[in-house]
């Protein structure tokens, strides 16, 4: 896991933590945890598609942060560090095939709605289901761009890829989601 240094400060909005000051001691860790855990858990849950796995990823990312600080490191931007840690942990889980992705046809977007919902709600349910069917890379782009409101450059930095790759993944994902909505 590497820290993101020398990049422009990340734009924050909504529920993002404000803990951007360097973290180098136990008190600062406690502040980062208190202010940042909720949004990190949300981020990890959206990336992984599962609140339980998201909880695991968020806690593990914080544990890594604690260990880094206790080894004497000063983390300049803990929120970026934690998000990078979540993304790396999730990628490693995929790589090691700990989570085997075998999607059952049942329960997919073709299933009938559970309740009498409006078209709008039905579309949102369909989008969420389709989001979970996206590739890990595409979903990461969508969550970073439209949940965390990161720029293409910031997203590329966190995902360690080019801005062009972010644009391609995002466009393809949005096209797929739009197609799903138009099918309704």
């Amino acid at each position, binding site marked *: 896991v590497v820290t993101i240094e020398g990049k422009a400060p990340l734009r924050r909005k909504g529920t993002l933590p404000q803990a951007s000051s360097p973290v180098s001691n136990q008190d600062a860790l406690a502040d980062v945890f208190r202010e940042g855990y909720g949004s990190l858990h949300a981020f990890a849950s959206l990336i992984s598609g599962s609140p339980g796995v998201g909880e*695991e990823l968020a806690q593990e990312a914080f544990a890594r942060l604690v260990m880094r600080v206790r080894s004497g490191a000063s983390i300049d931007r803990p929120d970026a560090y934690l998000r990078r840690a979540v993304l790396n942990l999730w990628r490693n889980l995929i790589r090691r095939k700990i989570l*085997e992705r075998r999607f059952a046809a049942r329960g997919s977007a073709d299933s009938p709605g559970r309740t009498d919902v409006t078209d709008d709600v039905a579309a949102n349910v369909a989008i969420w289901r389709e989001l979970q069917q996206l590739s890990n890379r595409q979903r990461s782009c969508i969550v970073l761009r439209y949940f965390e409101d990161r720029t293409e450059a910031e997203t590329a930095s966190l995902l360690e890829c080019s801005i062009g790759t972010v644009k391609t993944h995002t466009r393809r994902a949005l096209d797929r989601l739009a197609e799903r909505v138009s099918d309704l």
Partner: protein
Amino acid sequence: MKIEDRVRQVLHSRVRSIQQADPPTLDRIEARVSKHYRKRRSAAIGLGAVAGAGAISILLLVVSLPANESNLPTRSAASIERTVSTGGEALALCASESTVWVGLTKADGSYAILRVDAATGQIEGEWKTSFAPGHMAFGGGILWASGIGEDGPGLRALDPTSGDLVSEVAEIRGPIVFGGGYVWATKSGPSAETATIVGIDPRTGQEAMAIVVGSGVHDLAWADGTLFAITTMGGTTRVERMNDEGTLEQIGTNVTPGVLAPGKDGVWIAQEQGGVAQIGYTTGEIRQPTSLPQGTVLPFAENRAGLWAILGGSPGAAVAVLDPVSGEVLGEVALQAGPSRTFPVSAVSTSNASSIWVTTSDGQLLEVAGES
């Protein structure tokens, strides 16, 4: 609305629905950090030994760990908190937040239900029954018990405090579960292939719904707002979920009969060929933890402490709490006598608890606690 805005709306609304009411404390992160340090220390010791570098190098590696590690909390193993002697052999078990009920067969051949205070482990009542309480569930303010009596199989609604019989439905046998305002049970059909799962309205005692399921229902669970069942038809055991049309649809096969445990993200099943899998509620994704312990693993509950399972056979069985993601054993308690029943597993928990209750073949009711 533009698709980008719609995606934003969906993501934020989803986050609102998954935000934790009770987020973990920093202590939990500390426990995780401590675990990492222990792993590092083990690896360091292992490396030192393999390299033959001698005691000095091992000492140096251990000493080089952060000084504050010794102050960190360590994860304790699961432990037996309470032991209650039931005075019989357990047939069934169910729990609410405050009470545990145990269905028993006594040494003299009679049947009874014990009411135990979950907070103190005190037996608060023992009610003799005219039927063998083989399956029990609590819901709608009623204790539900199914079993065969002198009049044949039936479902009895009992006052959970006094044990008084409130009502009775005939021809019910097998597992029962409460959910969605109904008690769900299996009703025998005219032939072996025409069993039905019925949803009974507790206010009227009438069947509100019936689903033909085939020859056998081994387990029922209520989770994610719907019913899950392990059934057998044509020699194949499968796990099924009730859909919006009130019919069952298959979501997995090759399942161990009678092992179905609702989890936070999905329903846990034991597979016939060994291993444990979770079927996600939202996606239907099948996930298999890869660091499961060797041997038979029968998951039966997930709560704040983790995924609880019976390990191994009887005797030699143990109750263990596992990490729900990796399957790693977080804590384990060996049972002097095996669990009183494994299909379904004779252990229960409520989702908000961090402990479970298990009955053993030597007539004990044990509360095993893990870490929340």
